[in-house]
């Protein structure tokens, strides 16, 4: 027990929580999009994320490409990866219901984790750039430069995904399919095509989260599952299938974790997050920003 923090410390904890939470948010948006379209919890999201982190690691250590530039290279690759994954695997079992898709995602997670541990060894890796240790002073508060950049990245990404969903034709189709697949199909939207697009965007978002992880955290091949869980909690906070809710959920989770690890202890932080998660689930099962209309 450290007691209640003073205002400056409180602010610092809050900012730190928001910065970490933005990262959870990006992973959660991908999860949320995939859930909206395919109705499955894509459990391999974390493993895909770590794959992204390793790609950045390789680029950085072999050719010393800056992670923020490497990000631009990773994006199209992961979009294509997601597209292939959907058309090659998930589309084939989509008709058989949810269980096979879930199983497929799990198999993919196991496969990815172990391929990564074979290729890059199970040792913990870090991407140490010249600006990794840089901190920005803001009065008495120090903000880590990489974390700030990462959360900016997260905000921009969320904004782009949001605009894509609201303004573009394809985005509207995505929303239509996630609301009612049959009605969308009746209006001439191809659910397969839209699902493939959504899935690849979800995978690309996992890649972005991976870039963010690589420069802020040390990581190993099995680190991703924990992140999948956290992203899942963030999604549930915001309500399954909602984009802005997922980001908000991520931020709430980040703040909650950093507050509880300061006021109680780091060991209990996970439990506090899960208990809050259960309470939200029970009291507001549609999430904090959830729609009141029930899906049929």
């Amino acid at each position: 027990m450290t007691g209640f923090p003073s205002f400056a410390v409180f602010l610092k904890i809050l900012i730190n929580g928001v910065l970490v939470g933005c990262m959870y948010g990006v992973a959660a948006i991908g999860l949320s999009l995939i859930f909206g379209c395919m109705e499955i919890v894509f459990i391999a999201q974390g493993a895909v994320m770590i794959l992204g982190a390793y790609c950045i690691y390789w680029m950085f250590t072999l050719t010393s490409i800056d992670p923020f530039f490497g990000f631009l290279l990773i994006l199209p690759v992961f979009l294509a990866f997601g597209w292939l994954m959907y058309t090659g695997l998930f589309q084939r079992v989509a008709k058989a219901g949810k269980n096979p898709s879930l199983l497929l995602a799990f198999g993919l997670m196991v496969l990815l984790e172990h391929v990564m541990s074979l290729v890059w060894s199970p040792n913990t890796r870090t991407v140490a750039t010249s600006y990794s240790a840089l901190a920005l002073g803001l009065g008495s508060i120090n903000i880590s430069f990489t974390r700030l950049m990462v959360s900016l990245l997260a905000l921009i990404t969320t904004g782009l995904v949001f605009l894509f969903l609201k303004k573009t034709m394809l985005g509207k189709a995505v929303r239509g399919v996630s609301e009612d697949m049959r009605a969308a199909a009746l209006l001439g939207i191809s659910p397969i095509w839209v699902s493939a697009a959504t899935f690849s965007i979800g995978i690309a978002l996992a890649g972005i989260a991976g870039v963010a992880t690589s420069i802020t955290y040390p990581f190993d091949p099995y680190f991703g599952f924990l992140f999948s869980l956290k992203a899942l909690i963030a999604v549930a906070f915001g309500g399954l299938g909602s984009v802005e809710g997922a980001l908000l959920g991520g931020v709430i989770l980040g703040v909650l974790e950093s507050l509880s690890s300061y006021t109680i202890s780091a060991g209990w932080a996970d439990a506090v997050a899960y208990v809050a998660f259960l309470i939200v689930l029970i009291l507001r099962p549609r999430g904090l920003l959830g729609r009141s209309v029930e899906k049929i």
Partner: protein
Amino acid sequence: MIGKVLSMRNSGYFVGLILIGFCVTYPFIVDAEASYLVYFLFLTFIYVTLAQGWNLVAGYTGQVSLGQHAFFGIGCYMTAITWRAGWTGYLDPLAMLMSGIGAALVAIVIGLPLLAKLRGDYFALGTLGLGEILRVICINGGGLTGGAVGIGIESSAYKSMSPYYFIALLIALIALASLWLIMRSNIGLALVAIREDEMAAAANGIGVLKYKIFAFAVGAFITALCGSLHAYYIFHIHPAGVYSLNWAITPILMTILGGTGTFWGPILGAFILAGAFELANIWMPELHPIFSGAFIILVTLFLPDGIVSFFAGHRRGILRKLSLFNWIVQKT
């Protein structure tokens, strides 16, 4: 005559009896300490039990739980704590029973809010948090749970492999028998009705919550029995090991692989998956987990309804579903 005895209806019983007979006599034929197959069967019996525990909750009742490892861990801890305190002995049936009942009570207490409020995916997410919360509690439990190091118990009590083998077999048979009886009673009918359409079941006078909690508690009881035996076998339990999500995921995979909501599916799935894992482990230890992942993906791609559906044929499965539906309609 032989044709009649071996008709489709009876062949299941025969195969079952022959398999049980083989399992009972096998440790007497070979040296139980040295035989790899005895160890493998011991492990597989535990997995069969765990898979059937999940099958009852998710396969028959339709409540997809991702938190079975919580009950497994409770079983482990209750057994280890009572043994360390000197209340129970080595391989004590009382301790195992108490672990099972304790887990069932926890399942009732937790199931009351979760099962009443959460449906479908939300229930799955809620139960996922359960195991994680318990893991953190055990890490921070101080002297009672031994913190992150866990509880080590006297491994000098170990004498031979055979008692483990037979207890695992007994637990598996108890689980199978109770599942068989439940599914052939009115309770089983109610559970399947809840899975198919909760609203319609409630409209027909089924106390939905009561039956869901019953299935959840029985599933927890069965799972905790395995946890208890695991504690006796491993002699040192620690939070990361017994609350590992693997204890929830592997049985789920086995059930889906064999066929969810079928009696034989989880048994078949457990044997095939455990066998595949062990063989891969022997022949290519380096590549074993990669093989396992690829195996899961391949089976899902080509047999999405489980292996049992491959034998039963899709047509018969649909016919059976229809007749069951008719039966429920007539009955209620």
